[in-house]
């Protein structure tokens, strides 16, 4: 039964263009304030579908936050208030910028006003203020001369500005929307969606894909926000008409469903399906999903109707007070669940009945409960038990004395946690736990299987590797956070630090907290339930002692359940705190109340800083950049308060006055870069909506303004200072585009790279910053909630090591396009265009903080990523973007022997681009184990590799590259020798690894050959540095691809084992080992290295492939620098293209594809990525293993 689950995961990552569902309920029965618990369930779009997907973003205002909704009156105060201020020369100094911030505070009352998706009827939300703002008449262009700087309006403006505007947005976006509406795609990694319990309960009963019905039933339910009428009908119809099985629009149904199917399956039997599915299995099932969907969909339709008929027959006249039409549908669904679960409220409040994990439990609950009058209520009783499985298994374990006796002998099973409630034991529970035991033993023996590395030739599995299973009970495991969001290096946490030291493996977490999600429960509630002592948010792993008290799973404090929490707005019933969404899903988002902010949430403020020196103009990036901005101006995430500004610089700094009312933008030039000042602080950052025409005019004219510049200097430092002065009042995002080494002013840098030393260790000397200006600047920015993103488009050395500091400490991101040129390097241009588009319209969170809490006894000691560590467990993130990942290292301070599980909770508090304060909470639960063998069983080799990579980056900066390399090798040597001495009892000469770590040596070797740590071949310092930056910030999945690329043979793609996404069939070729012996001259091979792909064509490759896929007649006629695959009308071409685009859609930024022939310039790059092979300076995999063996035996 695990296949449906996993394919359900795939399905949850759909690129379905379903509507964000707004869902409002106002309880009219419960004795509660009506503010309580308004739940919004939202489809978060999966943004990883870069190109097509991004266009649709405005459609989903919740997820991406960039629809400009007219109804949403965020008031127009902020900029206008500044307009009133008289202008004049003295204004420059007389108006400090903080005043501006102060002036914007009148919005405080209105910032909570939500758009229609967020229950605007909540009493504490003041409705949108209908502000009648008087716009003072704007004076004509300023003619004041300011002391100390020259001031001019260039003639370019006057000539160009009369051109009528051409709005290009509709034209460009329309086709893409169409494209999107008829296709849905899944991410390549199967089983990486949410582990939502609900999916399980949906699938478990019916065979195969029982989520189809939900999708099929979607036509009734999803109605989008009323302001997007065009998109939703089309998307909905596309789903139904095509019968696309993989769309999951309805989260109400799916996340907290009655869970009917589980009835047939007591949790005992549920054990096997919670096992981590074999990756191949879900492919099969998802491939088979489509043809089967017809009948199953009907089946499920039926299911859906059942619930709907329940709605109709439900006695409760729960008419939703909300005004949206769509709410009625959802309220219907909810009322069905409330009517069904109303029997639950009468259940005795005890865990035995709640657990329902065994027949005894069920029968006891049945006896205690009022006799179910009809089958459906008894069904829901059972289901109810299953839906609340959280902490019961540990209790059971303790309770049954037999089991606790047997416990020491059962290595796979976590020791029970301390007794908290009344003991309860019976035979059935024992047998259930025993069954789980045998299952886990089997699982463990599989994971513990020893692999002799030197003898195992085909070590790489043909499918992507999944996160290893933990020895958690299946109920907990399906509640757990998705491994894509939150992952631990050791899925079985050792009990003590001594045990951890014995295993010689790093303990750490890898997080991707702001990842775009397809499904995320959003909770609006006036009180957010948190532990009173450690402030942990309530999560699925807390234990309810009784109905009124819950015990924190991190600090073990017993807290009261607030009155409001007793009411479950989903089921509209009272007395079910354990059925609230907060305790049903490990990833939730809260809309924070006003307690969480002392100042109004900041508006979205974007400042673009362009290098316009001669070098920059030569590279031609400005044109592309402005074009992209023009196209995406309407899609920038933000609300009506969004502000935008532009600064350009060469040896002077130029500002652009875009004040509304001007006939054309004015350029103000400040040449005094020693002591930079901002000429007109008010009119440089302007409201995007009020000055949109001016902004567009500027963007059109900007590329042409500097074409004839002779200025070669670059005053980056002063420009940054000016940008900071502009931004410090509000916070926001500064995007810096730089093309060369900053040569004058503060922050001046000098070339530190010796090109002759590139291939030696010495060449990697200057990995630290040359000056602390950028770091200090970043810290200042971080304090003012400003993030700096750096785009470095440079042909020559630009000292990225120093420049990257500005992003590193301000939580920005770094993009690097080596040897960018608009003519000579079209591939880079394409990548830059696509990346920039994604960058501009991706989701953004402002003034964020992230706190990672862990169970008492564990402590976090080191963080990796881009942020400022403000407190020992608090990361300050001026901006958070969906593409950045974090890593932390942990140590075990106290013994964890008291508990059987540990939990980690990452809470990210941020201001959405709509001006809402939100908290996204992820909770991960892991078992504690007491033997080294179990620690090895749960070792997650990918997470370990990624954590080691970030640690090695730190080591190479603080110490040296060779130290970092040695440390990496020692990490393998230590852990394998520790394994041999503690677990394995084989003879000395064999190099063995546990099955979970069989790829460890390979990955470390790949890491040593990665650009960041490679020695021996020529690597530019900037490229090395950029690779290091990526290691610190990329989320695990992408980082693993960078470290160890996937190699596919694609000249013989067949539909065998393919998966279906939407109406497209995606072939799934097996992943091959990265060795030249796997290549053949007759074939064509695709290597996927995340940011680039190489398509290597063998010399004797069949001419049909070259003809059908590349469109050339023969091998010889394929050009050297081919970087695009044509869309040809042949079967093979379509297969290749669908496969490549499927790979590309799985990541946020574009992967360039290079076609590599024998004589192509990228040939060396390609062959360097074949990590198992020997190069002139690096060992082959086999030699590396021999080296490790030698080290171990030493």
């Amino acid at each position, binding site marked *: 039964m695990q296949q449906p689950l996993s394919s359900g995961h795939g399905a949850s990552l759909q690129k379905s263009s379903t509507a964000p569902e707004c869902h409002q309920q106002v309880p009219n029965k419960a004795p509660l304030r009506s503010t309580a618990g308004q739940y919004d369930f939202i489809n978060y779009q999966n943004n990883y579908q870069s190109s097509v997907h991004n266009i649709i973003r405005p459609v989903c205002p919740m997820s991406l936050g960039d629809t400009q909704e007219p109804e949403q009156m965020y008031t127009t105060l902020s900029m206008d208030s500044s307009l009133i201020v008289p202008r004049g020369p003295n204004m420059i100094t007389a108006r400090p910028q903080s005043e501006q911030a102060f002036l914007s505070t009148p919005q405080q009352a209105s910032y909570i006003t939500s758009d229609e998706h967020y229950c605007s009827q909540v009493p504490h939300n003041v409705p949108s203020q209908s502000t009648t703002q008087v716009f003072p008449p704007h004076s004509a262009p300023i003619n004041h001369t300011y002391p100390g700087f020259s001031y001019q309006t260039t003639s370019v403006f006057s000539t160009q500005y009369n051109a009528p505007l051409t709005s290009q947005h509709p034209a460009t976006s329309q086709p893409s929307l169409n494209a999107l509406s008829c296709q849905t795609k899944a991410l390549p990694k199967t089983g990486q969606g949410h582990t939502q319990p609900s999916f399980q309960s949906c699938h478990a009963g019916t065979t195969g894909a029982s989520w189809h019905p939900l999708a099929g039933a979607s036509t009734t339910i999803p109605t989008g926000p009323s302001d997007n009428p065009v998109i939703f009908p089309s998307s909905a119809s596309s789903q139904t008409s095509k019968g696309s099985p993989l769309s999951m629009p309805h989260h109400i149904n799916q996340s907290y469903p009655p869970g009917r199917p589980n009835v047939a399956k007591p949790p005992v039997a549920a054990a096997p399906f919670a096992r981590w599915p074999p990756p191949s299995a879900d492919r099969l099932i998802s491939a088979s999903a489509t043809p089967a969907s017809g009948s199953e969909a009907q089946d499920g339709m039926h299911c859906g109707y059942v619930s709907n008929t329940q709605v109709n027959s439900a006695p409760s006249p729960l008419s939703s007070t909300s005004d949206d039409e769509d709410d009625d549908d959802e309220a219907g669904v909810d009322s069905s669940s409330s009517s069904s679960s109303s029997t639950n409220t009468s259940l005795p409040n005890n865990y035995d009945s709640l657990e329902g994990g065994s027949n005894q439990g069920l029968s006891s609950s049945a006896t205690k409960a009022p006799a179910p009058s009809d089958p459906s209520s008894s069904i829901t009783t059972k289901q109810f038990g299953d839906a609340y499985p959280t902490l019961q298994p540990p209790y059971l374990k303790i309770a049954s004395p037999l089991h606790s006796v047997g416990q020491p002998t059962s290595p796979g099973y976590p020791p029970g946690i301390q007794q908290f409630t009344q003991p309860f034991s019976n035979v059935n529970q024992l047998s259930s736990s025993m069954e789980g035991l045998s299952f886990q033993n089997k699982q463990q023996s599989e994971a513990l299987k020893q692999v002799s590395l030197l003898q195992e030739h085909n070590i790489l599995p043909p499918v992507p590797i999944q996160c290893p299973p933990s020895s958690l009970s299946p109920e907990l495991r399906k509640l757990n956070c998705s491994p894509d969001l939150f992952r631990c290096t050791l899925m079985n946490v050792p009990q003590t630090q001594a045990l951890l030291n014995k295993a010689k493996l790093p303990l750490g977490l890898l997080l991707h907290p702001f990842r775009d999600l397809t499904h995320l429960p959003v909770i609006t509630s006036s009180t957010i339930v948190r532990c009173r002592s450690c*402030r942990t948010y309530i999560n699925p792993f807390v234990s309810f002692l009784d109905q009124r008290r819950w015990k924190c799973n991190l600090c073990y404090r017993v807290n009261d359940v607030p009155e409001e929490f007793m009411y479950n707005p989903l089921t509209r019933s009272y007395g079910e705190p354990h059925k609230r969404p907060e305790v049903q899903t490990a990833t939730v988002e809260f809309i924070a109340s006003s*307690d*969480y*902010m*002392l*100042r109004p949430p*900041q508006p979205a403020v974007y400042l673009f800083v362009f290098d316009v020196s001669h070098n920059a103009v030569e590279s031609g990036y400005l044109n592309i950049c402005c074009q992209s901005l023009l196209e995406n101006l309407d899609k920038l995430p933000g609300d009506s308060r969004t502000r935008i500004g532009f600064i350009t610089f060469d040896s002077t700094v130029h500002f652009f006055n875009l004040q509304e009312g001007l006939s054309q933008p004015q350029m103000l030039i400040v040449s005094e870069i020693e002591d930079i000042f901002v000429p007109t602080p008010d009119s440089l950052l302007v409201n995007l909506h009020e000055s949109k025409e001016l902004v567009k005019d500027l963007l059109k004219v900007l590329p042409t303004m500097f074409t004839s510049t002779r200025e070669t200097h670059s005053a980056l430092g002063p420009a940054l200072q000016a940008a900071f002065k502009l931004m410090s009042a509000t*916070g926001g995002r500064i995007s810096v585009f730089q093309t060369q080494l900053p040569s004058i002013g503060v922050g001046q840098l000098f070339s530190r790279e010796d090109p002759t030393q590139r291939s030696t260790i010495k060449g990697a000397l200057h*990995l*630290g*910053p*040359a*000056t*602390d200006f950028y*770091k200090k600047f*970043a*810290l200042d920015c*971080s*304090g*003012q*909630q400003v993030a700096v993103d750096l785009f470095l488009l440079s042909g020559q050395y630009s000292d990225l090591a120093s420049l990257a500091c500005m992003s590193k*400490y301000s939580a920005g991101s770094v993009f690097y396009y080596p040897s960018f040129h608009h003519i000579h390097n079209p591939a880079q241009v394409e990548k830059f265009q696509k990346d920039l588009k994604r960058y501009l319209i991706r989701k953004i969170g402002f*003034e964020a*903080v992230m*706190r990672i809490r862990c169970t008492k006894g564990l*402590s*976090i*000691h*080191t*963080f990796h990523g881009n942020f*400022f*560590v*403000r*407190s*020992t*467990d*608090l990361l*300050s993130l001026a901006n958070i973007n969906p593409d950045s990942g974090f890593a932390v*290292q942990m140590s075990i301070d106290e013994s964890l022997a008291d508990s059987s599980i540990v939990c980690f909770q990452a809470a990210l*508090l941020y201001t959405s681009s709509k001006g809402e304060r939100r908290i996204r909470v992820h909770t991960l639960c892991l078992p504690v184990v007491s033997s080294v063998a179990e620690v090895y069983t749960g070792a997650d080799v990918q997470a370990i590799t990624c954590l080691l990579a970030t640690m090695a980056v730190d080591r190479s*900066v*603080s110490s040296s590259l060779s130290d970092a390399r040695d440390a990496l090798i020692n990490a393998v040597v230590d852990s394998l020798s520790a394994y041999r001495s503690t677990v394995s009892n084989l003879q000395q000469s064999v190099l063995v690894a546990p099955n979970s770590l069989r790829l460890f040596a390979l990955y470390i070797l790949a890491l040593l050959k990665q650009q960041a740590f490679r020695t021996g071949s020529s690597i530019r310092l900037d490229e090395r540095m950029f690779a290091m930056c990526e290691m610190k910030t990329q989320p695990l999945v992408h980082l693993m691809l960078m470290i160890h690329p996937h190699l596919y043979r694609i000249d013989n793609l067949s539909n065998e084992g393919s998966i279906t996404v939407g109406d497209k069939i995606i072939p799934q070729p097996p992943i091959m080992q990265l060795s030249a012996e796997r290549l053949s001259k007759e074939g064509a091979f695709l290597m996927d290295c995340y940011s680039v792909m190489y398509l290597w064509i063998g010399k004797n490759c069949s001419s049909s492939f070259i003809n059908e896929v590349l469109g050339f007649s023969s091998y010889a006629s394929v050009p050297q620098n081919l970087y695009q695959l044509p869309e040809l009308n042949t079967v093979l071409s379509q297969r290749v293209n669908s496969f490549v685009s499927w790979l590309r859609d799985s990541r946020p930024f574009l992967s360039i594809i290079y076609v590599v022939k024998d004589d192509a310039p990228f040939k060396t790059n390609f062959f360097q990525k074949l990590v198992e092979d020997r190069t002139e300076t690096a060992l082959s995999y086999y030699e590396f293993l021999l080296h490790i063996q030698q080290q171990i035996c030493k």
Partner: protein
Amino acid sequence: MAFTFAAFCYMLTLVLCASLIFFVIWHIIAFDELGTDFKNPIDQCNPIRARERLRNIERICSLLRKLVLPEYSIHGLFCVMFTCAGEWVTLGLNIPLLFYHLWRYFHRPADGSELLYDPASVMSAEILNYYQKESWCKLSFYLISFFYYLYSVTEDRVSLRCHQVFSSGEDNNRHFKY
């Protein structure tokens, strides 16, 4: 001369050692300050508090940095003085710390002009713990050495007095008592 250079050294180091102890105590307080955050977690999440907090961290770090060189140079001065005074035992006791200081000074993070205590990384629990341990160790070292110097001064004094008594005895012997 009765009042030897060594005695002078000990008296001077006694005074300076007291100042070093104050430095270290200040360090300990500062790290404690860094380690404890705002009491109210909601405050922590507040952007305005963020600014204050950041300024606080930067201020503390810059103060800490200002104390680094004086501390190291005072301790270096001890070693120079004891070398001059020929107090080899005391010098031997101080040499390890001298080398540690030199190592710290030259092995600081390659961060350009700044010394230790980088505000961007000081809040990392690992580094903060290290600093805290370091300052506690130094405190104990300075306290012990303070009492050692005190002992040395008094002993020096005592030996001086004995010497005076002895020498005065000699003087007496040279003259007849009337």
